[in-house]
Structure formats: C-alpha cells, structure tokens
C-alpha cells in the first residue's frame, strides 16, 4: 500500500493503508514507517533476502528498506499515532522505507508514466519467477516516481509462489488498472484522470466493450484484452466459483514455463498500449509557433537561469510547465522539480525528455485551477495535490500562466498570489501579462472590460501583500514583465505604493 496520509494527529504522524491486511504505513515527521503484522512478516523477509530484491535495489527499481532494531523502534514509538497502531498489532515488526520526494497518484500521471509503471510491474513479476516468488497484486498504486523513474514501494505485495501454480492471479487487476485505461486513452482519447480518479480498480472489460463498434471488437488491440474475456465471462455462471480455485500442476517446470509465457504475452500486449510518441495538442507546439520576438525566450531563460543560480533552490515547482523548457533549466541547475500542466500530451513530452536525459523532473497532469482533490475512503486516503505541495518548494515558477487563471478560470488575482505564497517557501518567479498583450486579448475574447483594473501597478500592489519584489524586467517587445519575488514571513495589508518594496526594476529598451 502506498504512503498516503489518511488521518493527521497532533504530532503530524499520519497512518494509512487501511486496505492492506498485512500492515500499515505511517508518515512520521518525513519518515516512512511500515508496521508489518506477523501474517506478512515471513513473506517480506523472504523477499528481502532474495537475489531479485538485491537486483531491484541495485537498479533503483525498489524503494530502500531497513528493519528497525529495538532502539530505533523505541524512538519511533514516541509518536502517539504510531504507538497506537503498533499496540493494536501484537507481534508486529517495524521497517523504514526511504522517502520518495513527492507523492503522486496514477490519476495525475500522463499515459507515458502509467505505461512505465506497468512495465516495471511486469518486469518484476518476470524476474521474481526465478526466485520462486510472485506478486499478490498488480496495481499502479504500488508504484511511485522518483523524478521520471518509477520505483516499486509496496513491499508487502510479494509472496512465495506455489511451485505447481501456472497462473498469475493479479493478471486481471493488471489488465484493469494498467492496460485498459491505457488502451482507452490511446484509442478514444479519454484522459487517465477521468478514468482513474473515479475507478480506483481501473476499467472492467465490459465497460470498454460497451465503447467498441462491432468492427473494433475484432481488432487485435481489443480482441484478447476486452472482447474474448467479455464473451467468456458471459458464458460463466455468476454463482460458479470453481474457476477461482487455485490450480496445481504436478510438474513445477511446466508451471513455470506456462507462467513465463503468460507474462511474456502480457508484456507484448502492454507494448501495444504504449502512447504514441508524436501526439499533438493545442499547446504541444507552443514553444515553436508563437508571435513572440526572437529575444523573448532567451531573455526569459537568462532571467530564470540567473535566479536559479543565485537562489539555488533544492525543490522547484513549475506551474504551467508546457513542454518543460524551464523545468529542464531548473533541473540542470541541481533542483528537484515538480512540473505541472493541465495538458497530458505536453506533460508526457516532459516525462520523455526527463527520462531520456535523466533530469530530476516529476511531471504531473494537474490544473492549478482545479487541482486533484483528496479522494478515497473518507476523502482521506489520497491527499489532495495542494496538501502535498504546500510549503514544499523553495521556488515556484509561474511563467505565462496567471493570465490563463485570470481570464479562462476567472480566479481573482489576490487568490492566485495567496496560493503561490502557500506553495513557495522563498522565491517566486512570475510573469505578469498585461491585458493589452495579444495572447491576453485572444483568450479574453471580447471581455477586456472585465480586466480594466488589471495593471502592472495593481498586480504589484497585490503581490507585495505576501512578497517583496526583488527584481522586475520587461520582456522584449511585449507587455509582459518578469518578476523575482521573495516571500515575507507575515503577510501585509494592502499597500498603496508597492514601489516602497521594489528593489530593482528594469525596462528593456524597445
């Protein structure tokens, strides 16, 4: 089960994983503690001692884990919530996992990342075979991302295999949670956010079958994953539970051969669900096709690079990252970047680049105007994006974004600035776009009168309630200004003359 906060106690320890019968995961002051019940302990130890585990750790495919000795346990038990859970679990053992920098959930991933998580899962299932081990489940919630790289985190998913068992029982879950959402996304354009936010256990073949035309039902992409299972299930009686009984062959070599072939077949089918590399969307070619001057992006790049060099933030949030141009600059400067955009196609492109160049960028499909909410049991199993992001970033980039929030989403400027003050602990790099900017007018679509009060001065007056303006620079041949702002510890009431707090301002020669 994943590390997601469910309940908060007064000393910030949080318990979760209420669904796992073999243990609980607690977040204790930035540490990830797993309390393992005796029923799951032997399986976990068997896995941790296996060659497969050692290889996964070496290749950084598995989260680092250590068993806590008595002294370390005593320290952890000082936290009330952990002690409460531990006392309710007689005979439990405590392990600590390495903390993944930023928690993310499958409904925030672009298709490329869900596919990568699926590849990791099936690769692990194949490698475990040689060590006589198997998986109890195959869900995207078992995987997190460290930057662009998937890492398996649910160590209670492993168990010794019955030697004569030729079936991979999590296969149906693998198909429902990985392959069918990817298939539906690829062929029908339905977003993973739409599917996985409301369908925790993915899509049933019957649900996909209902989307298919008569001809599509016989297409290779859908025949074995959707149509045949639906036809077979229809012939199966609802009361007949015989098919769920475990099967045992007398020949373990034959069982292993069969399982190996089934996993290879699943891997080939998974390859066919991979999202196409050259997808396009409304924003995918924004960097190449726009009306800006030749010096516009170089000037922005210089400004952002200079800020990153001076501030040296360890964690950066890039809001409205588009194809990740500035996220890459931040990552190359040594920061760990979370890059968000509402367009899954561009976020997928960011992931491909980050993976290829091994840049520490975690790209997520998040619309800041409607960020992912808390979902799950009691709306508490999977924390909202804002709860995970608040106060976690030394620097926030909001380049070419706020006019979209103002115009398309009708979010008041004061609210936008207030939210950025919650997200950033120190620096904010923000691009103010004046209402007479061509892009602003284009998206306003005749509603310019609604923004007659929006000026550079009113923007600054709002911003200085939460930030000091350190630097300001007008972008070449535009009505856009870039600002570097530093967060102040106590918000001010509205200031009439923001120039009192402005340190430097540059106007580019027109």
């Amino acid at each position, binding site marked *: 089960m994943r590390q997601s906060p469910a309940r908060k106690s007064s000393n910030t320890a949080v318990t979760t994983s209420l669904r796992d019968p073999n243990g609980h995961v607690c977040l204790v002051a930035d540490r990830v503690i797993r309390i393992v019940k005796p029923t799951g302990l032997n399986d976990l130890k068997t896995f941790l001692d296996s060659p497969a585990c050692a290889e996964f750790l070496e290749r950084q495919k598995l989260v680092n884990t250590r068993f806590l000795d008595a002294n370390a346990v005593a320290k952890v038990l000082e936290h009330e919530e952990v002690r409460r859970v531990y006392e309710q679990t007689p005979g439990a053992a405590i392990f600590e996992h390495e903390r993944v920098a930023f928690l993310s959930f499958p409904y925030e991933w672009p298709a490329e990342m869900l596919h990568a998580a699926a590849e990791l899962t099936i690769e692990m299932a194949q490698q475990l075979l040689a060590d006589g081990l198997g998986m109890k489940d195959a869900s995207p919630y078992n995987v997190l991302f460290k930057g662009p790289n998937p890492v398996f985190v649910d160590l209670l998913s492993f168990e010794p295999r019955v030697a004569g068992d030729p079936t991979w*029982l999590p296969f*149906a879950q693998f198909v429902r949670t990985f392959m069918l959402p990817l298939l539906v996304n690829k062929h029908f354009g339905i977003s993973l956010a739409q599917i996985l936010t409301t369908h925790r256990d993915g899509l049933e073949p019957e649900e996909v079958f209902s989307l298919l035309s008569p001809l599509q039902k016989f297409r290779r992409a859908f025949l074995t994953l959707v149509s045949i299972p639906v036809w*077979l299930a229809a012939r199966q009686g609802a009361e007949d539970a015989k098919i769920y009984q475990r099967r045992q062959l007398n020949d373990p070599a034959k069982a292993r051969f069969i399982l190996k072939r089934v996993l290879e077949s699943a891997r080939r089918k998974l390859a066919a669900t991979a999202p196409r590399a050259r997808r396009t969307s409304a924003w995918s070619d924004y960097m190449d096709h726009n009306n800006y001057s030749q010096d516009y992006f170089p000037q922005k790049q210089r400004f952002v690079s200079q800020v990153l060099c001076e501030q040296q933030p360890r964690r950066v949030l890039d809001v409205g990252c588009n194809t990740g141009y500035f996220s890459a600059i931040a990552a190359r400067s040594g920061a760990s970047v979370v890059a968000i955009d509402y367009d899954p196609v561009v976020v997928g492109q960011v992931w491909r680049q980050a993976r290829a160049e091994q840049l520490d960028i975690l790209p997520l499909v998040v619309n800041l105007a409607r960020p992912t909410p808390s979902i799950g049991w009691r709306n508490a199993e999977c924390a909202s994006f804002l709860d995970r992001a608040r106060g976690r970033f030394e620097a926030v980039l909001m380049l070419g974004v706020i006019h979209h929030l103002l115009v398309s989403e009708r979010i008041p400027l004061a609210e936008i600035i207030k939210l950025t003050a919650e997200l950033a602990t120190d620096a904010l790099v923000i691009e103010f776009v004046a209402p007479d900017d061509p892009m602003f007018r284009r998206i306003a679509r005749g509603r310019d009168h609604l923004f007659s009060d929006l000026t550079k001065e009113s923007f600054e007056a709002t911003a200085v309630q939460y930030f000091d303006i350190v630097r300001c620079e007008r972008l070449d041949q535009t009505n856009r200004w870039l600002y570097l702002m530093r967060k102040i510890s106590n918000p001010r009431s509205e200031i009439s003359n923001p120039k009192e707090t402005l340190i430097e301002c540059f106007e580019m020669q027109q």
Partner: protein
Amino acid sequence: MMYADPGSGVLIWQILLALFFGATFSFSKLKTWALNRFRPAHKFERAEEAYAAKSGSKVE
C-alpha cells in the same frame, strides 16, 4: 494469499492461454523424447563415443 479481484473473463482467458502453453510444453517434451528414442544411428554413435572415452582409444 490473493489480494486482487481475479476477474472472471480475464481469468478464464488466462486459463485457456495456460492450457495452450502447457500443450506446447508437453509437445516440446514429447518431441525431444521422440527424437532421442527413434534415431538409433545417433544412439549408436553416442554409445561408441562413450566407450571410446572410457577406454582411452580414438574413434575412427
């Protein structure tokens, strides 16, 4: 211990696949056995080589 819902249609399909792969495994084993059993020339040559190796002489 199984955690995940095994589904029904996908499970039946997997069982059918398993039967197919199981059949290919059995066929492969049968083919190997048959080749070993019904190729006496090879069998004789191997017996000759084994004898030669044991006695230290060369096979012509």
